[in-house]
């Protein structure tokens, strides 16, 4: 191969461009809730603690001894336990305590049915009460009032999927057209399939804001949408990219649509 041809090949290579939303959100949470916990309590950065903790952590984890120990599940457990302890020793701020109360509340866990870790979206602590908005990686959200004196959830309000933004009619039609132009989707439609309610994919729970304490505004992700296609009681979920006019992927009924179906069609039960 000539050098010029190789350069062209390198320049034109079809490169992956991915995003793991759960990882992004969780790492963000670790960075901001965990490491800054000490600083929130005082309103200014904690005296060297976050940086030092992480530096020590990184140095330690890279020591040869650690690398050997990493092979052992027991070592993992010990390290996790020690460092979890380190986080807790960092004097959690009221907001962290409130978030913790909500995450451990059985009622919240039950009401946020679905899978995945509960993500804390926003915490406001005022006059001995905390308002905590939480959800899972996708799905509905709960706003919980926490009595900070007794460290317990005293009331909750759930925001159903109806708070997800509706797509404009022309955008909805475009999303459907993109989906149906995929031969796999077309074959489902040709066999009598129908298109369900089209939803935008929201980029991140952290992009939400509360207006007046009762309305959740969701910021859609960069122009992507889910087009559900139903046939014979099964639902395929077609993820379309409205910016690039292409189907990103099709989630087969047996490969996870139950999860999404729960989110989009779950009946309101309280």
């Amino acid at each position, binding site marked *: 191969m000539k050098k010029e041809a190789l350069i062209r090949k390198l320049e034109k290579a079809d490169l992956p461009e991915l*995003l*793991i939303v759960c990882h992004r959100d969780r790492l963000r949470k670790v960075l901001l809730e965990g490491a800054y916990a000490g600083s929130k309590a005082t309103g200014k950065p904690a005296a060297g603690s976050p940086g030092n903790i992480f530096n020590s952590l990184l140095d330690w984890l890279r020591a040869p001894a650690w690398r050997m120990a*990493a092979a052992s599940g027991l070592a993992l457990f010990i390290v996790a336990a020690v460092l979890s302890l380190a986080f807790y020793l960092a004097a959690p701020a009221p907001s962290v305590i409130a978030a913790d109360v909500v995450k451990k509340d059985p009622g919240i866990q039950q009401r946020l049915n679905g899978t995945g870790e509960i993500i804390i979206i926003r915490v406001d602590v005022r006059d001995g009460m905390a308002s905590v908005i939480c959800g*899972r990686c996708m799905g509905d959200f709960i706003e919980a009032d926490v009595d900070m004196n007794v460290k317990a959830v005293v009331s909750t309000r759930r925001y159903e999927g109806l708070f997800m933004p509706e797509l404009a009619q022309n955008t909805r039609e475009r999303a459907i057209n993109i989906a149906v132009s995929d031969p796999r989707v077309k074959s489902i439609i040709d066999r009598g399939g129908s298109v369900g309610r089209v939803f935008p994919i929201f980029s991140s729970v952290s992009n939400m804001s509360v207006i007046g304490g009762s309305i959740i505004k969701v910021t859609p992700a960069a122009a992507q949408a889910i087009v559900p296609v139903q046939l014979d009681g099964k639902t395929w979920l077609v993820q379309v990219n409205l910016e690039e006019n292409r189907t990103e992927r099709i989630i087969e009924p047996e490969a996870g649509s139950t999860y999404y179906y729960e989110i989009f069609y779950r009946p309101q039960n309280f």
Partner: protein
Amino acid sequence: MKPYTSITPGQLRSEEELVKRAQHTPEAFGELYEIHYKRIFNYALKRTANVQLALDITSVTFLKAFSQIKKYRWRDVPFAAWLYRIASNEINDHYRREGGRWVSSIEAIADLADTSDYADEINRAEEELSRHEEFILLHKKISELPIIYQEVIALKFFEKKKIREIVKILGKKEGTIKSLLHRGVEKLREKMQ
């Protein structure tokens, strides 16, 4: 994703302000994180062709950035250059260590235990990655080169960086970068024969 040097002087000033705020407030660091997360993850992905490893490297990159942000000195260079440098060092360290996994423990520590949706998302990403066959073949050959060549080739061709941008990321002279690139492509060509 636009190259980071598409930043205008005005945007650079805004970024400088944001970085300075991030040295004191978690929310501002969160903004920087949101802006740069995807870019750094995909750089790690293109360097490693391994979703889990790229996630690990991304975790360490931002943990290190966080831990060092107070020491960061603004030098009219986009913040992304610093993140790229941290990520590059992490990737290079990883290869020098023959693939020792260290960051998975960080995830355990941070209570990032696998959940079904997280695992599903990674599985889907791995499937998506596997569809980029041409990239995987190229990566395989590039990964046989010495690390220093892997780095410049990835920055130049996968990240679409200009020479002067690579200079800022790697902290080497322009002539050195050009020379590395020239030799790296030549060595890669030999491997492609």
